[in-house]
């Protein structure tokens, strides 16, 4: 539930929804590995009016894809709101600030600051992982630009970009007790909203939210839970064992395995999880990331009772 009402810092659609105390809902489109906007155009239409803003990943899994800023710009041109993602793996602070100037000038207003999967996972494993700054330092840098009007080096920026600053958090990473401390560190550095890694183990997420609420983090930043419809039991099992930093509950896997129609069950599970998040203290919204299944988002959002989306 989201009971906060606060002043606007930036005025993006996503911020307006959250600041008005309503339950937010964002989506995600994965850019392709070739030079075309076709999939973006298609899925954007499907999500129009169904979500408050749309994430575009940044060379996800260190595989070369159409860049997040180019995809975000496309969405602006289509009249919807993007969430630009910036990873620390591929750009130094110079390139990042340069990209931010351009992105803001184009009308992009939300940015998610991430570390980035290690280059070893991708299709150019011997390349130099930049990591000039880390995600916490990136958040800090964006806050300085917005609130102090200066670059990282301290020099004044005449027309600074002012972004609604987001970060990610993995409630399933180790050490568990430390995760809330780390989130607090990011919020101290300036994070306005949080998107968690997809929740496939509700019990653990509840414990995580308890830790966050205890520290009052939900009052300082909007915490949105990641929801992923997982369309096959095989994929669920793969995520349970093969993906670092991911914990999938046994119950989740079994429900998909036992179901007659796995896809329908996947939607059902997502809807249930969204409803639980709506009840949970400290959760301000959900982020629906349907990896390679973007078309299912409208259905999930509708069945979860999240329509119509607020307009301003």
């Amino acid at each position, binding site marked *: 539930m989201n009971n906060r009402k606060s002043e606007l810092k930036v005025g993006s659609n996503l911020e307006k929804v959250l600041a008005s105390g309503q339950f937010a809902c964002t989506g995600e489109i994965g850019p392709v590995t070739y030079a075309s906007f076709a999939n973006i155009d298609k899925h954007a239409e499907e999500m129009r009016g169904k979500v408050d803003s749309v994430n575009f990943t940044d060379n996800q899994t260190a595989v070369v894809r159409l860049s997040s800023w180019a995809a975000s710009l496309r969405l602006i041109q289509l009249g919807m709101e993007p969430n630009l993602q910036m990873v*620390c*793996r591929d750009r130094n*602070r110079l390139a990042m600030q340069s990209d931010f100037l351009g992105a803001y000038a184009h009308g992009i207003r939300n940015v998610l600051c991430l*570390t*980035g*999967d*290690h280059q*070893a*996972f991708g299709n150019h494993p011997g390349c130099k*992982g930049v*990591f*000039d*700054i*880390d*995600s*916490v*330092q990136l958040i*800090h*840098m964006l806050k300085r630009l917005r609130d102090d009007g200066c670059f*990282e080096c301290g020099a004044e920026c005449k027309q600074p970009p002012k972004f609604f600053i987001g970060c*990610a*958090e*993995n409630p*399933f*990473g*180790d*050490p568990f007790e*430390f995760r809330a*401390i*780390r989130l*607090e*560190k990011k919020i*101290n*550095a300036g994070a306005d909203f949080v998107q968690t*890694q997809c929740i496939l183990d509700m019990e653990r997420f509840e414990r995580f939210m308890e830790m966050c609420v205890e520290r009052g983090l939900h009052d300082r930043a909007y915490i949105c839970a990641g929801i992923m419809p997982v369309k096959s039991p095989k994929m669920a099992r793969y995520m349970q064992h093969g993906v*670092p*930093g991911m914990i999938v509950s046994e119950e989740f896997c079994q429900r998909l395995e036992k179901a007659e129609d796995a896809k329908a069950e996947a939607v059902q599970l997502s809807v249930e999880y969204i409803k639980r998040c709506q009840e949970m203290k400290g959760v301000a919204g959900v982020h629906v990331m349907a990896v390679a299944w973007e078309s299912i988002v409208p259905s999930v959002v509708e069945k979860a009772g999240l329509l119509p989306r607020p307009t301003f």
Partner: protein
Amino acid sequence: MIVVENKSTEDILKMIAPYKKVLIAGCYGCVTVCLAGGEKEVGLLASQIRMAREKEGNPIEVLEQTVERQCDKEYLDKFQDNVREVEAVVSLACGIGIQYLAQVCEPVPVYPGVNTQFLGANLDVGVWEEYCMACGECVLDKTGGICPVARCSKHLFNGPCGGSQDGKCEVDKSVECAWHLIYERLKALGQLDKMAEYIPVKNWHRNEGPRKLVKEDLTLE
């Protein structure tokens, strides 16, 4: 210490293919300690080279010599007698020694017989691990004595990232997550509050090109 690994003998043979008399130059410093470039390894490589060239009907004479270090000119001078006799030198010292030797041996070419890997600790016989990246600005006071630059795969200063699980780095299960180690260490030291402290962006210290250190008060007149 500097940890090096032997290049493949095949590669070395290619480098010295045109020559009939060479010197294998070893070093009693780090490369002896990491069991790659000392007198013994010089002997093994020399034997391999002689036998390989004998087989191809193109015999070669191989001299062997090892000195204390190859990063001080006085020790490099000890090679000169042998260098005068040969057409090329293969050095088993680290990249520093190879370059310095190449400088003093000119016009005789000096080839690398090893690949310099990293600065590491010798954990046990035959086991070395990268501990330091000579970044120029040590933060070990903030991280309980565990370096986030060398030992975190993404050299994060405010880690861990989301890929840390069961104390392991997402890159491979055999790799420890440095930030997990830092967390445990700070906990053991009673300094866990340092974990919540923000460490600002780093100066990567490459502003003046290859780094140089001159201690003015100690230089000779």
